């Protein structure tokens, strides 16, 4: 356990030095909110102020894109380079690599989500009770685990050249259909969005702010995706055990 934590700490240190990761998790959501947030004052989405919706959406965007694109690319590259093999030759338990990745990505999601929420509070003028801030943070933070699981599956399955377009494609689908760039409205798009985990994570956030009860389907959709991605990750890690 101590060794796995040491590995996770090293992963955090690496990610902090990685510009690409900072751009996806922190700079894009913060910049989008700073630039676009003030322009939609007065509008509404999902039953809350647009400023509040946009805060939730961009916090989710930073959290999930960091978990997805960062992890999948790195895992794939490190498998190709042989770092995963090298770790297998150390006394470290075999699960440490994946556990370390998850822990590091969870740790690094914190500042990105917190920054956007702070921006929402002080720039966007979003007000609510303290517990709601924590609940929203928790929902987005835990929700991003879904994409960490997917990233592990992709990273173990595909070579780095292939991972890039796959992760990008999923990123776009999840952002657009999940209503992270702009709120989805109207029949068709919303019907699709209901099955997208990023949409449901955002809706949990806005429902908390609006003070309405969260429909059970939101949790079911997220849990179903998480279970599917987790199963995919486990199968992928096992299937490649002979070729690390």
């Amino acid at each position, binding site marked *: 356990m101590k060794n796995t934590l*040491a590995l996770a700490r090293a992963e955090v240190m690496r990610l902090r*030095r990685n510009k690409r990761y900072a751009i996806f998790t922190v700079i894009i959501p913060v910049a989008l909110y700073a630039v676009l947030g003030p322009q939609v004052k007065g509008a509404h989405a999902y039953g809350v102020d647009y400023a509040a919706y946009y805060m939730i959406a961009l916090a989710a965007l930073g959290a999930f894109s960091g978990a997805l694109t960062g992890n999948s690319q790195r895992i794939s590259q490190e498998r190709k380079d042989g770092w995963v093999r090298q770790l297998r030759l*150390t*006394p470290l338990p075999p699960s440490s690599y994946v556990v370390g990745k998850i822990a590091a990505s969870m740790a690094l999601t914190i500042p990105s989500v917190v920054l956007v929420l702070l921006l929402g509070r002080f720039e966007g003028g979003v007000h609510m009770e303290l517990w709601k801030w924590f609940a929203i943070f928790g929902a987005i933070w835990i929700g991003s685990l879904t994409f960490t699981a997917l990233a592990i599956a992709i990273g173990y399955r595909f070579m780095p050249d292939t991972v890039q377009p796959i992760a990008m494609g999923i990123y776009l689908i999840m952002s657009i259909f999940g209503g992270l760039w702009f709120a989805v409205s109207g029949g068709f798009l919303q019907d699709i969005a209901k099955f997208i985990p990023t949409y449901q994570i955002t809706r949990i956030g806005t429902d908390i702010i609006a003070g309405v009860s969260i429909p059970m389907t939101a949790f079911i959709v997220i849990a179903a995706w998480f279970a599917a991605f987790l199963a995919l990750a486990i199968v992928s890690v096992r299937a490649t055990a002979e070729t690390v």
Partner: protein
Amino acid sequence: MTQGLGATGTPVVSFENVRKTYGKVRAVDGLTMELRPGETVAFLGPNGAGKSTSLDMLLDLRKPTSGRIAMFGSDPYHAIKEGRVGAMLQSGGLMPEVTVRELVTLVTGFHPKPEPVEQTLRRAGIEKFADQRVDKLSGGQTQRVRFALAIVGDSDLIVLDEPTTAMDVETRRAFWDNMKVEVAEGKTLLFATHYLEEADQAADRIIVINRGRLLADGTPAEIKSRAGAKRISFHLDQIDEPFLLGLPALVNVEIRHDQVQIQSSDSDRTLYAVLDAGYRPRDLEVSSLGLEQAFLAITAEDDKNYSEPAAASFAEAEESMR
């Protein structure tokens, strides 16, 4: 420690009839071998002989199709997790975005019997660039960092797969000087190499494999004598082929026009027989075979005796497994 292990008779490594097949290709085909405590063993074989696959199985990166591999009397996985093995593989990589020192410190921390980081850096000859980023190193520097990761702990067995490729002559010498320090501490060393003079100088024992099977196992001197330790060459006007083929201690004979080249395990006996038969060879030359020639002779003979078409595809098979 080492003596004690030897006395109990537990080999450091044992392969019992180990096979690894990929479809129809037999990468390792019934390999049986043993490493005893304190030995320095060179693992030789042509490309595609099954060296990498064997080392991968030894280090629990691949599972044998059949047969048994033991390390310190238990299974390789547990020996590795107890820190009894330090290994460096051709295919092993490094964590990028950290400095050499950070990486060595991290991996040292995983070890139950860690060595001081500074000592590891010094022994691997990497202290000069310890504060550089791992992803900014040259090929030879990377190779030395990978070696450092194999010696971060006080392991009983060190496994090195072609440790000195990408090193210049100077670095290679420094590498072996450092390695001798490790071996002097009583560690068992198994290394695969392409440089046969390295095997000749550093190893107590040489294991030669070809097409996944054990071909020769002995001291460098034994391997050389098995291949025919001496080469005798001369010119002869009247060549009597049956007579030459019947010479004592003969390993191999090649005749080209009036030029005869003999490989012999006892050059004196062979030569005297030629003279006793009344021949007077001209331009007589007797020379020692190096390990390299011995190795080539042994594997060439083995390949000659083997004519299954699958043999040609071993190199490709091993390549495609990567």
